[in-house]
């Protein structure tokens, strides 16, 4: 039983082939991470799952249904939430309004429950609820981005580099929240990260991407122990 299965996906930016035949699987309740260098195509893969850009070849199936050719908003409405790279919160809208936008696809009567749930996970957002998104710190903005994604009650949460530009202590906090969401709500998480050490420690399974191809996959612990992975992504870091 797989929740998301990506098979043989090729994606192009104009004539540049960013993904060169990617196969990847995510099972319900897992945290799966995708690590790789800058420009390897990690974010492109996440965005291709969301249909923007669209896969030129191959297929993407979510929960048994083919979503390869669907428009982005239709894919999101099937139960995939995407916290895009760079957080992309709405700076002039308040925290509460940002969260409300996250609930666009949800039923209005669930809004209060979902909001309470997000405030339990991120108490800081409750304190800041009437503040504008743009006035939050980087870490708070990232929490808001994740919280906003959770408001849609997704079955799969796509996180694109949640540690980007954050202080080490804040990164730790964010990662422990991701684990919490996964364990308490059995949320399936697909995490794209540059911060390979933290991501692999957190994830059940991991994939390594080089130049638009998956070169390695295994459990988080296996990849952490792998000498190639250590040499390429962890040396000097930890």
């Amino acid at each position, binding site marked *: 039983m797989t929740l998301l299965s990506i098979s043989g996906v090729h994606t192009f930016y104009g004539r540049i082939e960013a993904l060169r035949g990617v196969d990847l699987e995510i099972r319900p309740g897992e945290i799966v991470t995708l690590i790789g260098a800058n420009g390897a195509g990690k974010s492109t893969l996440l965005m291709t799952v969301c249909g923007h850009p669209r896969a030129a070849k191959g297929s993407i199936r979510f929960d048994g249904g083919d979503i390869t050719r669907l428009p982005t908003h239709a894919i999101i409405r099937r139960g995939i939430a995407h916290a895009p790279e760079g957080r992309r919160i709405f700076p002039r809208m308040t925290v509460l309004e940002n969260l409300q936008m996250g609930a666009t696809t949800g039923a209005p009567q669930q809004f209060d429950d979902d909001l309470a749930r997000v405030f339990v996970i991120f108490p800081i957002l409750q304190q800041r609820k*009437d503040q504008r998104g743009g006035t939050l710190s980087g870490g708070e903005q990232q929490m808001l981005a994740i919280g906003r994604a959770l408001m849609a009650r997704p079955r799969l949460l796509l996180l694109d580099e949640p540690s980007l530009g954050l202080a080490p202590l804040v990164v730790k906090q964010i990662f422990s929240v991701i684990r919490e969401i996964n364990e308490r709500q059995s949320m399936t998480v697909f995490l794209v990260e540059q911060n390979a050490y933290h991501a692999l420690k957190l994830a059940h399974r991991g994939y390594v991407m080089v130049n638009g191809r998956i070169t390695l996959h295994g459990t988080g612990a296996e990849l952490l122990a792998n000498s190639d992975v250590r040499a390429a992504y962890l040396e000097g870091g930890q």
Partner: protein
Amino acid sequence: MAAETADTPQHPPQDGIAAILKDAGIAALISLALALPLFGFRIVGFGSGRGLALEERWDWVVTAVLAVFAGRIALNLWLRRFRAVLAIGGRVGDGVGDKIGQAVAAAPRLGRILQAAKPAFRIAVAGALLAVALAWPAFPFVDRYLLDLGVIVLTYVMLGWGLNIVVGLAGLLDLGYVAFYAVGAYSYALLALHFDLGFWECLPLAGAFAAFFGIVLGFPVLRLRGDYLAIVTLGFGEIIRIILINWYPVTNGPNGISGIPRPSFFGLPFAADPPEGTVAFHQFFGLEYASTQRIAFLYYVILALALVTNLFTLRIRRLPVGRAWEALREDEIACRSLGINPRNTKLTAFAIGAMFAGFGGSFFATRQGFISPESFSFIESAIILAIVVLGGMGSQLGVVLAAVLLIGVTEFFRELEQFRMLAFGAGMVAIMVWRPRGLLAHRDPTIRLHARGEKA
């Protein structure tokens, strides 16, 4: 001039006479370049069929350049003294300069006060403005001219509020808004003349036509953003205008359409002597006939239309589609990733904004009784956009203030004839210098919490 320099020894040497002369010289050079083609040559006709000749007016050029040169020197000297007074005033505490400074700073300060104030205060200001607007025709000093001015200002307020949906809320820069205004006006004129429909029957139809054109424009430009969108909408505005000029059989071309029926008060016409078998407004209510009755009625019609636009916008901001507009303005990519369909969201913004322009257009047609493509030139779009931008994008109260300021003040300088656009320009520059984000840049949140033991 030597005395001037001696008077103000505290100024650094670069403020000296040489610098002032250099500055004036540069200004004179620039004005020479401008004055040569603008003033220097003039085409004069010899009457019909005898051709044209070029007249050279070097004396005009010389006068203009000398005027700029002298003016620039005077301005510099005055500024310097002004600064000196300011400096002294600042030290002493209540110099003349201080007072001038305070006066100059007062206008933008009003905007700042309004913005910093609590929502309750802004609501009070809005309420006061509404009360004045409602009572306007009844004020003793309001004559026919001021009543007409009120109608014009309210028309622009309504158009500003309509465009605010597109530009302020959805963030789609539309330079061709007047096209929808034109569609509304021509819809009403043609429907009324050819199908004998009244104003109130035509109003929704005109709105629907304009909304349809909004969607027609919206489709091809959905993928465009910012500057590119602005250019295409600008083109669209011109296309509509040129169609109106050239589609002679339908629009009567540049001659325009005249004899557009005036609105009636629920079937009672405003006329001194109504046609046989009808009762005029003044007869029905047993009043003396006065031409201001019709104007006052028009005033309340446009006031009602404007208020409908405002209430609609205030309400829709709290609905999912209105929130999606604002989110789309902030970040389109984030919107996609939240499951919002950007295409439909933009189309609704275009269509609804266009619809209100259509309402405004049919009002314009019935008020004027005559329309021609000349009324729908780019400058109208520019004025409406200026009202929205100067008011503070997305601010409803800001639109009112900007419309009153720009239209009212420009009217105030009507005596200056063609130079009154200078007053308009100066108003715009002044607002942008003091309030670069518009008079009221504040944005009210659409949701606050007050449920489940939460303290709002």
